[in-house]
């Protein structure tokens, strides 16, 4: 049985509820907009229901630590095709096992969640590292990014702590939303008709006066701090994969 849902985490919790209530065994749990019908498919669509979602989440909090629950939430944002079913199987294990099972990595879903969370954390870390703000004419330090996973919900706090005294914006150009800090609080925002270049970068005409000169100095610094005699591009690429270069002034000049 393939189950379709709206693609939100809350929606997935409603799926869990319905599966238990109606004794359904899913073979796949798929985001509605990603579903491509195949022959002989048995399909059921689950509507997101706030009450059901809450009951599942409350129930889970009784069976697992809030840390373990947050891991599921984080893993969900990896957007992997198997992630819904993995979370479902994880929950099934937790519910059917007496006592704590969260660290039995011999169990497929438990190890998989651990590994996906690790990948998420790496991408979050990469955003902490590779976001490059550019000062715009309206005094906002703005950055466009294109991360592998949906990590925006997990990076705001880090930047808020660090850049408490400046306006900043980080925008995921692929998922078309971002976070904005107005020196008081964080906000999730969506920009209608954003003025990016074809490359989804911020247009030069929007940049503040000295912005380019700092980028140039940064490029100068970057090339001077390299040691030519020790050049090792394999290692370099491993640390800074090419897909991130576009938004790094030191790599895109």
């Amino acid at each position: 049985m393939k189950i379709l849902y709206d693609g939100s985490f809350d929606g997935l919790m409603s799926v869990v509820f319905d599966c238990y209530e109606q004794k359904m065994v899913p073979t796949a749990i798929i985001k509605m907009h990603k579903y491509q019908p195949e022959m002989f498919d048995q399909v059921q669509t689950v509507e997101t229901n706030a009450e059901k979602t809450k009951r599942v989440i409350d129930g889970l909090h009784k069976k697992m630590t809030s840390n373990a629950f947050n891991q599921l939430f984080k893993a969900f944002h990896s957007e992997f095709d198997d992630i819904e079913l993995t979370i479902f199987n994880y929950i099934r294990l937790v519910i059917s096992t007496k006592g704590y099972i969260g660290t039995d990595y011999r169990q497929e879903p438990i190890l998989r969640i651990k590994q996906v969370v690790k990948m998420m954390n790496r991408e979050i870390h990469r955003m902490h590292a590779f976001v490059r703000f550019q000062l715009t004419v309206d005094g906002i330090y703005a950055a466009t990014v294109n991360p592998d996973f949906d990590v925006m919900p997990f990076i705001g706090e880090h930047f808020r702590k660090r850049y408490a005294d400046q306006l900043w914006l980080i925008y995921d150009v692929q998922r078309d939303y971002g976070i904005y800090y107005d020196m008081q609080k964080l906000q999730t925002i969506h920009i209608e008709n954003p003025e990016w270049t074809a490359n989804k970068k911020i247009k030069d005409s929007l940049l503040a006066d000295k912005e380019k000169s700092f980028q140039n100095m940064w490029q100068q610094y970057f090339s001077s701090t390299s040691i030519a005699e020790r050049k090792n591009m394999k290692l370099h690429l491993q640390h800074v994969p090419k897909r991130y270069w576009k938004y790094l002034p030191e790599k895109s000049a």
Partner: protein
Amino acid sequence: MKASVTDKLKILADAAKYDVSCASSGSKRNNKNKGLGNATGMGICHSYTEDGRCVSLLKILLTNHCIYDCAYCVSRKSNDIKRVAFTVEEVVDLTINFYRRNYIEGLFLSSGIFKNADYTNERLIRIAKKLRNEHNFNGYIHLKIIPGASPEVMREAGVYADRLSVNLEIPSERSLQKIAPEKDHKSVYTPMNWLKEQIAENREDSRKFRKTPMFAPGGQSTQMVVGATPETDHHILNLSASLYKEQLLKRVYYSGYIPISEDERLPALKQAPLIRENRLYQADWLYRFYGFEVNEIIDETQPNLDLEIDPKLGYALRHLDQFPVDVNRAPYEMILRVPGIGVKTAQLIVKSRKYGRVRYEDIKKMGAAMNRAKYFIEISGRPLPAASAVPERIRHEIIYPAKKAQLTLF
């Protein structure tokens, strides 16, 4: 002609790049009063150079003017190069603007020596002070302490910097005298020991009184140049161990000597000893995080690390009597000693085995490098077939894994 900031950056970043320490972790400087920056927790590498090193800090010299003549250094007095100096404002401005754009975690400031140690140190401190006091900057600051610094100057440095370092540079006094005639180890150890006392006292005070101001919250580190002088790895690793134990250093950095000068006091190397440097870091790592003693990693009979295999594998091959390790029963410390099993995998194993037997496939999925681990583990009483081999054979098989495709004869 006056040099532009970009010109200075070019020269003074280039001259600073041989100092390998880039770590920006281990501090506890919170963003207070909604200022700029935060230096808590793990340091971040914002980029990597083309040689694969972490770029975390704006690492520059204040100036490359120097009254000393250390053979291994580009800034040495006798070297015919262009000399420039940043102003205090220029360094502050660069740091703040790079930081605001998320290029860096902070500043690593060193300098050639002009006039004398304290005069130079005071200039460095002035920059740190300005960043903290006038710009409310809470990012990371690492200041180099020039050997021979006075306590008054260091006391101020510790107030504004997260980490301080006095470089040992050359692993033995005798070699140091030969290639850096103005320097001696005493002028390094004296400030190091003084800092150690101050840091210890400060930690003690802050346990007792909540409002104690921080003093070098990221501790101190040092660096040695490797390969410019004849010291063995055995000598170097024992020296590091004593620096960790006695001076309580946070990190010892090893910098493979890059032949930058044709000074006759130095060996004519063709290229930097990169593999050796890497092996030293691995050995250092085993000492600090894997519970190895130095004499388990290296002894006088073979005073240099094996360049072909990593030191953990080297240990295992020399101590085959301690293996195979039973992954279902052995203590965590022993599992950690298995080549191919790192901290993360070892932790997963000991957590999982509480629920039942851990199998070969489990360990593999948990991230162990089985091509190495298979020689050194057993799964509850049943050693893997590979575990009976002799050390030379294991060594050979690991270095030259059989390439099946190449076995065709013609």
